[in-house]
C-alpha cells in the first residue's frame, strides 16, 4: 500500500483546522469569530480540493514521519475517505456560515459562544483525522478528540438539560471508546500491528478475534447510538444550539459508523459470520422502526429530528448483512453488493444534508419563537416560506421520495435486498419510510394549516434560511452526478484493499 502516490493533502486536512483553531484562540469575541470563519472556509475549501484531487489521482497517502507501517502511522485518502471528507466540507461550510449569522445576530453578552469556533475547528480536524486514519490506535485518539469537542459543543448552550445530556453523552462515549480500545489491545496482542491493512492480513480466526469483533462493535454502537444504546442521543442533540445540533447529527455520529465500516470490511473479514451480519442488520431494522415511531410521538421539533436521526442511522446498519455472504454463496454471483454499497454511501450523504437542514430550520424556528413546540409550526409557509420549504424538501429526502438522495439510498438498498434474496429486510425499509412520511407530513400539515392566533416572532436574518434551504437542496443535488459518484465509489483502482474485495466478492464469513 505504501507505493501509492503520496501527497501532503491528508496532513494538511488535519493540520490546517488545528492551526486555525489555535490562532482563533488568541482573539477575543469578534476577531475570534472572523478567524474561526476563515478557518472553516479554508478547511472546507481544502476538503473540496482534496476530494477533487482524489477523483483525479486515485488514492493518496501520507506517511507520517517517514516511518512506514507497522511502526509508523499512515494517512490514507481513498475514495470512501474522500467522500466523507467532501460531505463534511460542504455541510461544514454551510453550517459555519449559518453559525456566523446565528451568533452575530444573537448579541450574546457573555463570551462563551466564542468557544464555538475553536471547538468546531478542532472537531473538524478530528473528523478529517478519523476519515484519513489507517491506524487503530490513532482512530481511538481521533474519536476521543471528536467526543470531547462534541460534548463541549453540546453543553455550550449552558442549559441544565444540556449539561445532564452532555454528561450522559460523555460517559456513554468514554465507555464506548474504552470498549473499542480493549478490542484494539487484544488485536494488537494477536497480530502485532496496528495498521488496518496489515492487521487484516495477519488476523487469524479464533476466540480473540471474535471477542474483539464483538467488543469493538459494541463500543462503536454505543458511540453511534445504534438501537439498544441510543439513550443518550435525543437529549444531547435536541438540547444543543442549532448549529451544534446540526454538526452532531449530520457529521459526528458518522465518525463511529465510519470506523465500524472500515473495521468490518478491512480487518474482521475472517471472523465475521453470516449470523453477525444478520444481528447487526436486525438492530438496524429495529432502530429504523422504533426511532421513527418515537419521532412520531414527540411534541418538540428538535426531539423529533433527533429521534429521526436514530431511525435514519439504522438504515446504514441494514446494509451490513448484505455485504456478508452466506456460506456457500459463490462470490461471483453476488451482484447485490454494488447496489447495497452505493445505497449506504447515498444514505450517508442524504442524511448528512437533510438532517443538518432540519436542525438548522428548527434553529430558525427557535430563534423566531423562543421555543420549538411542534404546534407552533402552524402557518409556517406564510411567515417563513423558505424555512417551510427547507423542512419540506429535507423531509422528502428523509422519506425517500424520488428524485431525492434519500430515494436513491433506499432504492439501492431495496435493490440489494431483493437481489440477495434477504427479503425480510424489505418490510423494515418500507415501514420506516412510511413512519418517516408520517412525521414529515405531520410537520407539513401544520405548516400549511392556518394559524389560530397571530404569532409574534423575532425577525430572522435571511441568510440563515438560505443556508438551511441550500442544505436541503443539497440532498437532492447529490442525485445529479449519481453516475459519476457510483463509478467513483466503485472504481477499483481508487479503493482500499477491503472495500475492493467487497466489490469483487463480499466479505466471507468463516464457514
Amino acid at each position, binding site marked *: 500500500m505504501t507505493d501509492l502516490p503520496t501527497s501532503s493533502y491528508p496532513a494538511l486536512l488535519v493540520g490546517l483546522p488545528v492551526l486555525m483553531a489555535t490562532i482563533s484562540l488568541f482573539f477575543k469575541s469578534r476577531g475570534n469569530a472572523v478567524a474561526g470563519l476563515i478557518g472553516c472556509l479554508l478547511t472546507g475549501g481544502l476538503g473540496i480540493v482534496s476530494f477533487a484531487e482524489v477523483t483525479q489521482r486515485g488514492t493518496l497517502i501520507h506517511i507520517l514521519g517517514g516511518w512506514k507501517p507497522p*511502526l509508523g502511522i499512515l494517512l490514507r485518502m481513498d475514495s470512501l475517505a474522500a467522500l466523507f471528507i467532501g460531505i463534511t466540507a460542504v455541510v461544514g461550510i454551510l453550517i459555519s456560515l449559518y453559525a456566523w449569522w446565528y451568533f452575530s445576530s444573537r448579541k450574546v453578552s457573555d463570551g462563551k459562544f466564542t468557544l464555538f469556533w475553536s471547538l468546531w475547528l478542532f472537531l473538524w480536524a478530528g473528523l478529517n483525522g478519523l476519515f484519513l486514519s489507517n491506524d487503530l490506535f490513532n482512530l*481511538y485518539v481521533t474519536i*476521543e478528540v471528536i467526543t470531547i469537542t462534541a460534548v463541549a459543543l453540546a453543553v455550550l448552550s449552558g442549559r441544565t438539560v444540556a449539561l445532564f445530556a452532555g*454528561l450522559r453523552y*460523555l460517559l456513554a462515549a*468514554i465507555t464506548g471508546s*474504552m470498549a473499542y480500545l*480493549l478490542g484494539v489491545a487484544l488485536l*494488537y496482542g494477536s497480530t502485532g500491528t*496496528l495498521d488496518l491493512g496489515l492487521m487484516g492480513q495477519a488476523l487469524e480466526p479464533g476466540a480473540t478475534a471474535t471477542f474483539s469483533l464483538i467488543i469493538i462493535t459494541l463500543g462503536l454502537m454505543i458511540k453511534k447510538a445504534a438501537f439498544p444504546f441510543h439513550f443518550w442521543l435525543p437529549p444531547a442533540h435536541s438540547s444543543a444550539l442549532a448549529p451544534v445540533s446540526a454538526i452532531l447529527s449530520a457529521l459526528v455520529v458518522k465518525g463511529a459508523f465510519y470506523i465500524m465500516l472500515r473495521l468490518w470490511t478491512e480487518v474482521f473479514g475472517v471472523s465475521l459470520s453470516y449470523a453477525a451480519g444478520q444481528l447487526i442488520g436486525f438492530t438496524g431494522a429495529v432502530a429504523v422502526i422504533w426511532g421513527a415511531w418515537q419521532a412520531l410521538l414527540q411534541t418538540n421539533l428538535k426531539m423529533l429530528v433527533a429521534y429521526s436521526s436514530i431511525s435514519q442511522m439504522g438504515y446504514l446498519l441494514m446494509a451490513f448483512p448484505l455485504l456478508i455472504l452466506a456460506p456457500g454463496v459463490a462470490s461471483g454471483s453476488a451482484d447485490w453488493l454494488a447496489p447495497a454499497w452505493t445505497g449506504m454511501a447515498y444514505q450517508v450523504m442524504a442524511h448528512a444534508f437533510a438532517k443538518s437542514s432540519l436542525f438548522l430550520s428548527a434553529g430558525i424556528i427557535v430563534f423566531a419563537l423562543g421555543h420549538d413546540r411542534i404546534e407552533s409550526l402552524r402557518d409556517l409557509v406564510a411567515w417563513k416560506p423558505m424555512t417551510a420549504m427547507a423542512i419540506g424538501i429535507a423531509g422528502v429526502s428523509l422519506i425517500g421520495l424520488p428524485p431525492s438522495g434519500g430515494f436513491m439510498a433506499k432504492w439501492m438498498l431495496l435493490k440489494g435486498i431483493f437481489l440477495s434474496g434477504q427479503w425480510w429486510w424489505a418490510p423494515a425499509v418500507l415501514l420506516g419510510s412510511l413512519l418517516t412520511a408520517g412525521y414529515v407530513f405531520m410537520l407539513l400539515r401544520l405548516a400549511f394549516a392556518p394559524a389560530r392566533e397571530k404569532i409574534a416572532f423575532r425577525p430572522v436574518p435571511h441568510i440563515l434560511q438560505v443556508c438551511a434551504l441550500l442544505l436541503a437542496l443539497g440532498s437532492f443535488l447529490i442525485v445529479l452526478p449519481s453516475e459519476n459518484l457510483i463509478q467513483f465509489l466503485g472504481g477499483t483502482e481508487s479503493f482500499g484493499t477491503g472495500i475492493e474485495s467487497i466489490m469483487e466478492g463480499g466479505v466471507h464469513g468463516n464457514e
Partner: protein
Amino acid sequence: METHQIYSLTSVVLFAIGIGGVIMAKHFLKKIIATIIMGGGVFLCFVSFAQRDALTFADPVPHALVITGIVVAVTSAAFALSLARRIHQLTGEKTFPDEK
C-alpha cells in the same frame, strides 16, 4: 502461569468491574471513577502483551500508546468532573434524575 498472563486476566476483570460501575453506580463521581478503572484495565491488557513480546527490552509501542491513553482518559475524566460539578452547583443533583 506467567506474569503477563496473570495481568492480562486481571485486566479484563478490571474492565468488567469498570463497565459494571458505569452502568450500576449512581453517583456521578463513582461513574467517572468507574471509567478510569475501565481504562486501567484496558491499559493493563496492552502492557501485559508488551511484556510478553519483550526481547532485549519490552515492546515500546504499547507503552507509548498507554501513556497517550492515560492522558486522554484523564482529560476526558476531568471534563466529566467539570460537567458533574457544574450540574451539582446548578441543581444540587448528584445523580441522573431517572436513576435515583
